[in-house]
């Protein structure tokens, strides 16, 4: 699946988008896999309360299942307007 990062999440991880092969059943499991990879991921995912997640461009939550999902995006709370 495609995993996208925005704002300071993108800056901490150091890239805007990557392809991830995963068997993770939920967003939380995917976060755990990414966090275990490298320090920069651990730094980005250190405080999940400061993060939001979208699945296929719809806001979702960290307990949500990933089956059938093609695009996951992680970002801080939005500041539009």
């Amino acid at each position, binding site marked *: 699946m495609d995993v996208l990062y*925005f704002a300071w999440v993108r800056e901490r991880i150091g890239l805007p988008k990557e392809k991830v092969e995963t068997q993770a059943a939920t967003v939380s499991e995917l976060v755990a896999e990414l966090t275990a990879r490298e320090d920069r991921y651990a730094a980005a995912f250190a405080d999940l309360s400061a993060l939001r997640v*979208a699945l296929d*461009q719809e806001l979702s939550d960290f307990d949500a299942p990933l089956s059938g999902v093609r695009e996951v*995006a992680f970002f*801080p709370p*939005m*500041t539009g*307007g």
Partner: protein
Amino acid sequence: MRIVVQEAPFDMGAEANAFAAGDEAANGAIVTFTGVVRDLATGDLDVMEIEHYPGMTERALTKIAEEAQSRWSLGDVLVIHRHGRLAPGDRIMMVATASPHRKDAFEAAEYLMDYLKSRAPFWKKEITNSGADWVAAKDEDEDALTRW
């Protein structure tokens, strides 16, 4: 309904006129709101950089505008939001609502503003000569959604 996400500046007068020309006789009330890049209290903001999530942004704005149309009697809705590098005083975004009734037009415009502050995927970064900081979301912006 018209949803526009663009980097280029927009002409708020021309947009308001074009919007108002839609169906004036049926809509007795037109409300427009324009957001402007505000300088920092210290007066040293050089650039406001706005990042967004192409694709999701348009979907989220459309959903918010559709929800406004279902809650209020609206003849039309316009949302324009810019991204990229802006300077203090630049116009960031604009919403317009047209309705047969003033109350609907005002309330729907406020609803659009409240939701696009914290439910549309934009992120602001303030750049000054001493560095760059992401703007943190405010609790009061999240709280504002509870009144709807």
